[in-house]
């Protein structure tokens, strides 16, 4: 068995979100973290490793400083890390990103007993599209919103969370799972793991490394290969003072309900 985990380094949006004068997000000034759902994905892979002794490879597409995040994942117990980095990859939307990551995953190697783990969605883009798109491009079965995993021979039994329940799904390997917070509690790095993190295999895939893959073409990756383009970014208007409704009669309650309905809150 073998696990490949796709991870993303994202700005830490739990603190203050910095916005530049032109209205776009000032990423450089914000602290970065490993995307929270991806932490559940890595923990899922490490638990598979604890149970079966399988090898865990983490892969991320991003600029060179993403190495720090990948080393932390090695310190948690991953065996190998791959950073996919190159100017040609910049400006990718989810289509182009999944194109590149799928090629990288192929290069790492997908066999009959491979499980690819992704987070449900990244807290910066918030699309939840990359995982399913990677699965499509690799022609693999996928299960999204995974909240429980049980390995049973050559297949996995997983619990897929729905809004008001869950589905229990049996899926053949190789397959791709996108993980949610409810799946597990990510472990800490360990002191010994940190001391080993810089001695573990670490590779950088650039455009030249991946260019022979049919998925990689300058027309299908990066800004140029992205079917969608972000046309404009802006900060949401700052909320004004709150509206106070006074009274405890039915009329006031109806008015409140109407106001909430108008804002699509109920």
């Amino acid at each position, binding site marked *: 068995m073998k696990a490949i985990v796709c991870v993303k380094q994202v700005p830490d949006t739990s603190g203050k979100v910095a916005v530049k004068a032109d209205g776009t997000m000032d990423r450089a000034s914000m602290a970065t973290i490993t995307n929270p759902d991806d932490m559940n994905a890595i923990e899922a892979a490490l638990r598979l490793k604890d149970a079966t002794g399988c090898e865990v490879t983490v892969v991320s597409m991003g600029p060179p400083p993403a190495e720090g995040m990948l*080393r*932390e994942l090695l*310190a948690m117990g991953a065996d190998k890390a791959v950073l996919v980095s190159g100017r040609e990859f910049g400006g990718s939307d989810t289509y182009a990103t999944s194109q590149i990551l799928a090629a990288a995953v192929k290069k790492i190697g997908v066999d009959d007993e491979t499980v690819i783990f992704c987070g449900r969605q990244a807290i910066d883009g918030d699309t939840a599209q990359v995982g399913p798109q990677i699965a499509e491009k690799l022609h693999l079965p996928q299960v999204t919103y995974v909240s429980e995993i049980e390995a049973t021979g050559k297949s996995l039994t997983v619990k897929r969370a729905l809004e008001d329940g869950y589905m229990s799904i049996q899926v053949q390997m190789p397959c791709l799972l996108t993980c949610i917070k409810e799946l597990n509690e990510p472990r800490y*790095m*360990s*002191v*010994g793991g*940190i001391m080993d*993190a810089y001695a573990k295999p670490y590779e950088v895939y650039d455009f030249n490394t991946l260019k022979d893959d049919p998925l990689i073409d300058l027309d299908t990756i990066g800004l140029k290969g992205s079917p969608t383009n972000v046309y404009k970014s802006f900060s949401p208007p700052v909320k004004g003072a709150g509206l106070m409704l006074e009274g405890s009669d039915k009329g006031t309650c109806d008015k409140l309900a109407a106001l909430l309905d108008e804002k699509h809150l109920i």
Partner: protein
Amino acid sequence: MDFHLTKEQEMLRKLYREFAQNEVKPLAEEVDEEERFPVETVKKLGKLGMMGIYFPKEYGGAGADVLSYAMCVEEMAKVCGTTAVIISSHTSLCCAPIFENGTEEQKKKYLPKLCSGEWIGAFGLTEPNAGTDASGQQTTAVLDGDHYVLNGSKIFITNAGFADVFIIFAMTDKKAGNHGISAFIVERNFPGFSVGKHEKKMGIRGSSTCELIMEDCIVPKENLLGQLNKGFKIAMKTLDGGRIGIAAQALGLGEGAIDEAIAYTQERVQFGRRISQFQNTQFQLADMHTRMQAAQYLVYAAASKKQSGEPYSMDAAMAKLFAAEAASDVTRRAVQLFGGYGYTREYPVERMMRDAKITEIYEGTSEVQRMVISSHLGVK
């Protein structure tokens, strides 16, 4: 000279902070209030490699360095003085003397279980009549065939109530004074060994401080640590290293109190302004931070010298002296910045102030540090 941490040390700092925030801070108030030894935290620390940070992997350690260990004690002390001293006495006072003086058999037998946290370590030197004058040992050890028989008692022993392995000092040649003391590795379940009265302390109240009693305690001959009658030197060298740990604890306590004071003074409003807007608050915090920063450089320098094998006895003494006095001063000022609330147990700064005082006393009082430093200066 390079004041930057290595990439590994930066990553370790991140681990320590996350662990301290998520696992240690939430328990700190309860551990103090109930005088409860945080057993569950020690198990987690062991699992993550924090009970044997700077020992080689072949002995079950994590293979990091002395500075990485000091940083761990510092980060834990920022949120809980008790947790910090548990790690420090275990590592510096029990694992270190076994690692530095033990035979291969002793290291193989004791270090892996100590480093994994399965066993907790302690150090028994102090006696009712031998505190600062550590040479006045009254505990005796007499060789009888294949074992030593120990008689006597020790007081104020950190970790005692929960420790499995103790480094015990005893007189093997009474007439020789300093040159008649030997060190032994004593297991909790050796016949004739027992743990006595638990001390009720002002601070570090979750740390277990007890008396040890040895009544015809049987210690196998092979548990003599180092050479016969060379125990005093082992004790003094061990305490040099232990002082780095206590200095790091003091450092963390002061820094933790500053963190609390910065957050509080930016929220608390009096006279229509946040109290952080008053220049007295600003100057107090500037002085407090400067003192702790100076302490940090002394602590890190002593740790780095120990790691590189240079003499560090005076450095450790200076680091402990300065950091402990700075911590007492800074935590006291933090209570003042909190006003009346600072005097209540609702806020953590009074606990930090109580915890800080002991750092001026244990592992050699501030006065002992001054004796060490002045003797290194050749002042007689």
